[in-house]
């Protein structure tokens, strides 16, 4: 699946990359070094909080938000990003590691403001990693589940 990057109202399609294109290394001081296949080394600092991301590379600040393509799932329930949208608590995890899920299938229940919300799968796939535990307090932006797309 291709990714779109929007800069100053202009769309850029990110090239298809695989994990061997750039190697990343964390350095003391918060620096991240990216080394390309050709051996070009680039240095940046990145910050991700509450689903918002900013990155500084050679003094240029990039910032923005990752937005999932399928927005219309879940209706009035918790927003479908697999990221906590508001402070709350994990009430129940409904899936297990490696489980195949259908689009729209409930993955976990979140409690907030004395109400219960279900977080649903935005696309069909496999549960790659469960990032939270039952009873855990959530802050906006916390990652809940890593879902790998596939049928």
């Amino acid at each position, binding site marked *: 699946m291709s990714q779109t*990057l929007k*800069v100053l109202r202009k769309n850029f399609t990110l090239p298809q990359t695989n994990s061997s294109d750039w190697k990343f290394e964390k350095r003391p001081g918060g620096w991240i070094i*990216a080394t390309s296949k050709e051996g070009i080394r680039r240095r940046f600092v990145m910050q991700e909080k509450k689903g918002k991301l900013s990155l500084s590379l050679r003094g240029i600040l990039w910032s923005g938000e990752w*937005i999932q393509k399928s927005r219309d799932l879940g209706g009035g329930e918790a927003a479908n990003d697999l990221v906590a949208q508001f402070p709350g608590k994990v009430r129940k995890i409904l899936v297990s590691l490696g489980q195949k899920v259908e689009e729209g299938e409930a993955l976990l229940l979140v409690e907030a403001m004395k109400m219960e919300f279900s977080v649903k799968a935005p696309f069909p796939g496999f549960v790659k990693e469960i990032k939270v535990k039952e009873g855990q307090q959530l802050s906006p932006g916390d990652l809940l589940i890593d879902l790998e797309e596939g049928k």
Partner: protein
Amino acid sequence: MTKKPKLLVANRSEIACRIFQTCREMDIATVALLAPGDEEGRHITYADEVQKVKSYLDIESVVQAALSSGAEMIHPGYGFLSERPAFARSVEAAGLTFIGPRAETMELMGGKIAAKELAAREKVPTLPWAKVKVGEDIQTAAKKIGYPLLLKASAGGGGKGMRKVNRPEDLLSSAESASSEALAAFGDGTLFLERLVNHPRHIEVQVFGNGRGDGIHLYERECSLQRRHQKVWEEATAPHLPQKTKEGLFEAALKLVKATRYRNAGTIEFILDEEGQFYFLEMNTRLQVEHPVTELVTGVDLVWAQIVQAQNSAETVLKESPSVRGHAIEVRLYAEDPAQGFMPTPGKIERLRWPTGAGIRIESGIEEGQTVGTQFDSMLGKLVVYAENRNRALARLRFALDETVILGIGSNQSYLQAISIHPRVIEGKVNTGFLETELSAFGFYPSEDDLSLIGSAKVEGWEHHLGNELNFGRQNQDSVFSLSPWTAFVRKGAFH
């Protein structure tokens, strides 16, 4: 044992920290002011003592804070109360030392018209001008001055009540609106007319007086790169300025120092027309934001000189102009988004890394984790570089801007980078209209390489988002540019 001297800074943020540094070096105890809403201010962390005030503009409570803390000196910094004669008077009436000029000097030089009259008496060139009271015959006055002309509020500053008039038929309506704006802003609708100079350069001379008629100059600064009358980039010394012009500027500046028996540090601002003729603009009776560039090329610590002069009024601290060496550039980092009309970008600073290295001086007003509000000035800090010549200083500035990391809030950092690579800036041929005309719209776009890096950045949780649409640039708090302005500039011709 004698008591350690104590100094209160009637200011905040970076300038307060700047003054604290010299105080520490001089073994002077420091007192910071804290006004509501500024609890996270950097200067609060760095002071030996903190006094709460209702507002940084509240003369009575500021003087009271100094008395309560036992400080015997007050440094006003710039802005706030620094050029208010009433403040200087209250400080001295309380038996404290005001680090700056006399209240009478501020009064005299603070009135645009009185200052121009003084300059004219001293044979310092001024632009043709006339003062016009409401209801007086403005047409005749305008005819004498000639078009295009500028209408200014006589009591004003900061561009309020200012109008550019190109043709006689626009004069009356412009005068009406300028006057009512001036009345609303300053309580005085008096206007004055002044010949408008096309494409002027802003050149100012740093001066320092002993208060008894003697003084020196510390060379000039060029501050032509301004946005809405606010400086964003300053240099010492000014590029491409003939020696003869410089000498004329210094001589004119010193005439005014003598005439006012100027005490302490001050700046005399001039504009330079396209023929190289200079005209007196105004005098700033305080330490300037851009004083570091002068300090770097002269080696003089101006704050040190200010304090020593104030402590020893019978002495002459700076007896002769120092020599000047190398070139310095300062840029101001503001919490504003150049991509969205320079909208303020308040918020929490999540990550902060100032550059370090040879010839780099940082005047920081922020800390990592601090929340920048909208209540105070949006300047985050100043980045100042020094090198043996202007080209090396420009290269050093680009390096320093590249190395600066501010995450969490947007800033004008990329705008400053854009300025630093502009051919006309590199040439040193700019004027006060340059930023509005040449850099009002600019954009950087990512290179293939940048896109590839973003596409595969999979550290720190990025992988969770792969396959989603990456929508950069919608955030109203942050500005968005490419990762590589250098290549973008060459490829896309980012400047129009």
